[in-house]
């Protein structure tokens, strides 16, 4: 097997395993995995900005919520069909990321974190202030009639799982292609040494803005899909918690690895699910796990594996 075939086989293998999993898992875990696949798309988007381009954002909840509301509001207020609504969510996430990027990318490092955090907080408060139009803190239910695509009812288990899997597979394969493309190499160059990249003739602002827009498209699509598949649009998805979560997924799974976001989301989801059965301080358990991770495997699980053996892991 050639070097380039190995990554392809690994990623296609994961898709095959996830396809088979729906037939083997009990329904509770199957639904969990559909949630995890959608959240992984969100984390993959975060990984494109943070893991590959080095943009440590604390505002990705804004792009996730933009996708969710970009999908939900046209259905709720204008009676749009699901497919155009999903596209609206995708575009909303990318457009907002572009807008925020135009301003926030004038800063870097800690300032970038703070500026993105402020934008996300402003977005959250806007959702609350425009209560009459957005449903405010309560949010709203996505009508089940608007959750039918090509005869498939996305409020039922199998179509929902398959929709999540298709989205996950497309997102992952695009990500795999992207990070191995010339532009992907330039993203990594920006992360590693922005000044040297500039000397080589690349425009850092343009590269980072493009990466952030792609990241926003991923987050927007994930938000739109989450609202569509699980039937609820609400302002809590715009809170800081949802900016932190994709970062944790990426850190745990391995920043700068294509499968890392999925692995991180999977482990974190079940860490919370299991720990909450034993203690109300389950977020403390999550925090402790992350401290251990940062101390002993700062590159995350797959980052460490890549460092210690599987050099070909993208």
């Amino acid at each position, binding site marked *: 097997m050639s070097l380039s075939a190995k990554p392809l086989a690994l990623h296609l293998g994961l898709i095959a395993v996830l396809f088979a999993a729906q037939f083997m898992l009990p329904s509770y875990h199957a639904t969990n995995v559909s949630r995890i696949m959608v959240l992984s798309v969100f984390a993959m988007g975060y990984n494109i900005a943070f893991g590959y381009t080095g943009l440590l954002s604390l505002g990705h909840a804004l792009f996730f919520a933009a996708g969710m509301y970009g999908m939900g509001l046209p259905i709720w207020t204008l009676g749009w069909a699901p497919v155009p609504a999903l596209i609206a969510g995708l575009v909303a996430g990318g457009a907002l990321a572009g807008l925020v990027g135009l301003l926030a990318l004038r800063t870097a490092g800690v300032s970038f974190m703070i500026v993105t955090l402020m934008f996300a907080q402003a977005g959250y408060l806007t959702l609350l202030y425009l209560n009459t139009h957005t*449903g405010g803190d*309560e949010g709203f239910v996505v009508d089940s009639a608007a959750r039918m695509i090509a005869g498939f009812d996305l409020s039922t288990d199998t179509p929902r799982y398959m929709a999540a899997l298709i989205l996950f597979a497309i997102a992952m394969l695009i990500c795999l292609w992207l990070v191995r493309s010339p532009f992907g190499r330039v993203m990594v160059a920006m992360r590693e040494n922005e000044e040297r990249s500039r000397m080589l003739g690349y425009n850092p602002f343009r590269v980072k803005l493009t990466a952030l827009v792609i990241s926003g498209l991923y987050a927007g699509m994930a938000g739109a899909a989450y609202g569509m598949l699980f039937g609820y649009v609400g302002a809590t998805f715009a809170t800081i918690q949802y900016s932190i979560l994709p970062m944790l997924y990426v850190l745990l799974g391995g920043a700068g690895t294509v499968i890392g976001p999925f692995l991180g989301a999977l482990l974190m989801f079940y860490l919370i699910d299991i720990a909450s059965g034993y203690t109300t301080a389950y977020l403390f358990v999550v925090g402790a796990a992350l401290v251990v991770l940062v101390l002993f495997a700062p590159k995350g699980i797959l980052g460490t594996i890549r460092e210690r053996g599987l050099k070909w892991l993208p």
Partner: protein
Amino acid sequence: MTKEVFGLSPSRRAVLKGAGAGLLAAGFVAPVWAQSAPIKLGFQLHRTGIGAAYGRWYERTAQAALKVINDGGGINGRPVEILFEDDGTDPKRGAEVVEKLVSQAGCDLVFGPLFSHVVIGTAPRAAELKVPYLVCSEGYHVASGMLNRWTMQPGITDVRAQVSSMAPWVLANLGKKVTMVFPDYAFGHDHRDFFTAAVEAGGGQVIAQVAIPPTETSFTRYMPQIPADTEVLYHVMVGPAVLTFVKELGEFYGSGARPEIFGFIDSLEAVDTASPGLEFLEGTHFWEGHNRVKQADASDHETAYRAAVGVDDNGASISDAKDVSTYAHMFSVWETLHVIKAGMEASGYQSTADRQKFVEAVEAMTDMPASLAHVQGDKRFNGKTHQVFGHQFISKVEGGKLIRAHTTSLEDGMYPDAVDYTTQSF
């Protein structure tokens, strides 16, 4: 010595007889429970997050109601158990928790959440799972038609009915020019819209609406927005800044003239009305869903309920006088559990295959007389809107204690149906 003191030192023969009888009794009773698997009820609990103060008391109330029901023979002769699962007062986690309780733990139904956003975020999943979802939320979202046939609110009156029913008394007794102070999000907007409409219908006037942004931690700068000719100040705040708000209101008016003040007890749930800084509340009025302080005319049911949930005559925990209960809301858990019992018995509920029959049985309910099952008072359930209507209480702070001044009638809170869930398919 022992015999002289207690007069009942048993002989060896008596002990053996007693033990034998006990064993026989245990042997007789145990198989009855053993033959029937317990009915498993899932409780979606706000154990952590913004709803934690409520969640703590909701759990205690559920445990107390469970004991009463099991002591009385369970449901349909089967023992009942409750599985509590923390939702972090978060809608995303709320939906996951319902999934866990139903699909993994095999619960027959789920009940108990209070916060509106959690209810709205969870209800679609409950409908997909086709599991009865009984909420204790107060929100108008059930009766408005936003949710679905599997979601019901049989244990507590909704905000629309609460505020509408009290407006006539406020106008007749406190004044006709009203200024409203409320949080600037959906819960506050329900108050703003429905109370304003009720005031205008009653010949009064809302002269100012002061909306407080949800992230605000100090309220001093909003106080000057209250017009000087205000006759009644209506306030309703929730969340951790409540105490600050009420204290700052007191500082604003000081010992000078102030309008009549009417508040929702939500502002002070789980807070002692005799706390330092709250002295100015003396003589003001509050809505209460259930009187925190034991009233002189308390019924036997009320007394038994108070003892069962471990609350003293002032509304605090029996074991810790500083641990003030969420008394105005938590009765909804007790009553909802008794509605579950009544619904399961009326429908002959045996297994999860009977969930639909259970919903239909609850929809068929109408009058709920005051009893140990309905300790807050008699109620009327509207099967079409899935919403119950109960009495509301207006209390006055006298000597630092909330003393009931008025009880609304059931009819005071009723409004035209906005939905007929019984026409929706399962």
